[in-house]
């Protein structure tokens, strides 16, 4: 488990980090290192240089303003899971972060790394997608914002350019009547999501559903939104029966499988996990 040789940079600002990246096409951002270092040790990746963004102050911290929550890219899962702000404003995200890996992983891994790596079995992409997160990105040409639905492109591919850095994630604060939840089926070997469901539901004045979102990790090559389930829920009374009937329509056309769970079985699991997440989200709404 010895990686190839690499240079190491530790910039103190986003500007400086971006500069190093644009001057080194073979450089990679290092955040928590809990995905990048393992693949380097397996020699599946051999970046010529690492740009360690862990000491950049601007990438730290969770703040709440104007109806949204801003989480710095280098905030760890531990911080997110234990943040009263995140728990109140976006319980699905706190729940997802709290179920990642083990304690060591949660102390090191970062939201920015998790979303940028875009591992299909990671826990945070579905939560970000369901919550309608906005991702802030800075590159040599300046900063831009990307919605979560545009960010995840394909298997471990995102809208990030190689010389861009994800600087923060913005999540709308749940308004009265909105609840969210994350339900995870742990892969017995990796502990990643064999199937993870993030649900957000909003109830109108009469109690019926006025908005819903249900997204999954682990079942296909990127986080996916089950739009047909969400559409089926809007207007319903969000009863258990309504939820069961809506998830009954779930279909993930490009579901993937492995030795532990075939694509077909994952679809079945997704129905169960989707219903679980929706029920908890409803109870919180």
């Amino acid at each position, binding site marked *: 488990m*010895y990686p190839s*040789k690499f240079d190491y940079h530790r910039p103190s600002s986003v500007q400086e980090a971006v500069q190093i990246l644009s001057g080194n096409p073979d450089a990679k951002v290092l955040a928590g290192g809990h995905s990048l270092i393992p693949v380097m040790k397996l020699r599946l990746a051999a970046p010529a240089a690492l740009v360690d963004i862990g000491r950049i102050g601007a990438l730290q911290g969770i703040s709440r303003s104007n109806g949204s929550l801003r989480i710095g890219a280098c905030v760890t899962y531990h911080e997110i899971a234990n943040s009263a702000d995140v728990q109140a404003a976006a319980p699905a995200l706190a729940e997802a972060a709290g179920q990642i890996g083990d304690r060591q992983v949660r102390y090191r891994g970062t939201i920015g790394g998790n979303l940028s790596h875009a591992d299909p079995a990671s826990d945070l992409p579905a939560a970000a997608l369901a919550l309608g997160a906005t991702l802030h990105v800075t590159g040599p040409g300046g900063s831009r914002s990307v919605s979560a639905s545009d960010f995840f492109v394909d298997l471990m591919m995102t809208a990030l350019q190689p010389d861009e850095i994800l600087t923060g994630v913005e999540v709308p604060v749940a308004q009265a009547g909105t609840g969210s939840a994350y339900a995870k089926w742990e892969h*017995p070997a*990796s502990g990643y999501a064999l199937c993870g469901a993030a649900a957000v539901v909003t109830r109108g004045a009469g109690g019926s559903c006025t908005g819903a979102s249900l997204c999954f990790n682990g079942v296909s090559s990127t986080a996916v939104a089950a739009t047909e389930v969400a559409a089926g829920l809007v207007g319903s009374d969000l009863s258990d029966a309504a939820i069961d009937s809506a998830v009954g329509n779930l279909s993930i056309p490009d579901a993937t499988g492995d030795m532990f*769970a075939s694509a077909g*079985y994952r679809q079945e699991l997704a129905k*169960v996990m989707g219903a679980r997440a929706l029920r908890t989200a409803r109870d919180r709404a």
Partner: protein
Amino acid sequence: MAGESNGAGVFGSSIRRREDPELITGRAKYTDDLQLPNTAYCTILRSDYAHAKINGIDASEAEALDGVIAVYTASDIADSGVPGGIPVGWLLPDMVIPEHFMLAKDTTRYVGDGVAIVVAEDQYTAHDALELIYVDYDPRDGVADPKKATEDGAPLVHDEAPNNIAFDWEIGDKEMTDAAFANAAHVASLDIVNNRLIPNAMEPRAALADYNSITGELTLYMTTQNPHIHRLLISLASLGLPEHKIRVIAPEVGGGFGSKIHHYADEAIAAWASMQTGRPVKWTATRTETYLTDAHGRDHVTHAEMAMDADGKFTGLRVDTYAAMGAYLSTFAPAVPTYLYGTLMSGEYDLPAIYCHVYGVFTHTVPVDAYRGAGRPEATFVVERLVDEAARVSGIDPAEIRRRNFVAPDNFPFQTQVALAYDSGNYEGALDKALETIGYDDFRNEQAAAREQGKYLGIGLSTYIEACGLAPSAVVGSLGAQAGQWESAVVRVHATGKVTVYSGCSGHGQGHETTYAQIVASALGVPYEDIDVIEGDSGVMPHGWGTYGSRSAATGGSAIASAAEKVVDKARTIAAHLLEAAEEDLEFEDGNFFVKGSPDQAQSLPDVALQAYLAHNLPKGIEPALEATSFYDPENFVFPFGTHIAVVEVCANTGHVELQRYLAVDDVGNVINPMIVDGQVHGGIAQGVGQSLYETAVYDEGANLLSGTMLDYAVPKAHFLPSFETDRTVTPCPHNPLGVKGVGEAGTIASPAAVVNAVVDALSPFGVAHIDMPVTSEKVWNAINN
């Protein structure tokens, strides 16, 4: 616990493990922690192909890399004049024994087969250089499934083994068994795949070799369960160095489960590289290499049938097994699916007719060898699953059918139909205790009520027997072992009365330093704290055979007990002389010799020891000093047994199996340290639950290992498991001085059947008869929904 541990009461108490403070504070030194000046580092290029011809190897770029000392291939080893072999140490009649050389010569036979060696100034360079060696492979078809490998036309692993059959072995009486089936009232039958496992010792294998060309001595620090076996095999088969010039040292060893018994090429390669370069050479496996080279376990395809009369009495058992050997015959591999498997087929039952037939099969996979339990888990799974299936087809309760068929307590010694003679047992005793603790009758009511509500509970029994502490040596030899199975011990009392104990066993996590000291404290009546235990250095202790097969207490402990007894005998002679009394008049209590009735006039063992060393006043004919050596060859195997019970709930929506309770009632004879025994049982159960629900080494059709990392190979985690309940009955071993049996493997042997029986029981409303391991949620879901 200091101070509480004086003398005789130490045996049987849960003293905390003295080895733990060093281990858990990170102070303990493992092989890779050791540093020698001027060390070079060795890496091994491994085949990416399950089966390929090697047309050529171009290492020039690697050789030119800064920091690379040398790159070697098989021809360099051959040219150096060493024998270069990796031998098999258990011979069966008519077995095909293909050549196994330290590196692949012209053909690779599994993904991971060694092809070239790099020696470099540091680990990084040694790994960089691997990427600069170009091997011209001509890939061929491979085969991984042991049954398919025997079909006509399957790719051959070795040309000299037609249909890939390494051996064709049988035990029992075929005619008698066939007759039992012809007359059976009921027959239960199952097709079983015993899933291939990867050992996953926490510490990867490693070696640090230091060859001194002036003295001709090789010092080899390595991850071994048996330093003397490695010394012997490296001397005879691999390097040809004289045995007395090789010293094999096992520093702290971080688990083995069998995987560090075997003699692999890698440690011999490090030693050979040290001979070539004149420098110490270190090799440490990456985790990937542990997956690709540590001998795997299990991997059987079996058809098994049980014949019964109308009352559910077993009348015959017929078993047909294809057992993978992998690409080469590993050290003790041939024994595992034969003498450690076929001989266990009687289980705890009075079975009048048994026939077991086994093909040992070459496949293009990592070699398969002993892994915790070694053959006995596979046999127990066959027997205990079949007993449950017998209960199902005959409509008899699983506990009741076992009771009807147990060897009765007054029927010992019991000669089975498959060679073993059980010396003692009380199977119903353990079963009763387990059923009562778990509340079996109540459970059946609860289960019925739960089913009404769509909840599926299941209970699974496994009433297992284990034969461990293989012995005696002459018998083991007659079965093909190229090794003895006695054990050595030295008990040395120093002049001050402190004691050093040397054992030929070689612990790697079991707690020998604690338990062996407990044995000696009780035997000599000296404080536990005054006793040190040393293992794992072929340069220090007499020849021994190491630690595996649950032999360290039964065989190693007995050797220690008999050496201690010799010490006491000699001390008694000296004490009698000092007390001017007759030896037969002396009592020995709590470390003091005294004449019966006058305990105030005593000579303590330390007093006697001092006199023994001063030698100013010894009885005639008595040599100075106070120590004894014992070479203990047991009379028979030991036969632990017990009942394990698993309780599960199966979720009908997802197929998820939740292990709710797990109870083990084991009979391991007298118990030296109950806490350590519980620890062994817990670890064994966790591994067995791992096999039954999670773990499996998966090869694809082309014999590529798909489960090659911990991301894909599911070792059980603590939160998958309930808190285990353990209890015991005590039936002492009648033939060894301590009355102890073995416990290292019991949990792995018993638990897979208990868990799978519980799942199948839970699924009985769906008519499910069997699910192969690992019982994943998906398999359960399919069983419910199809």
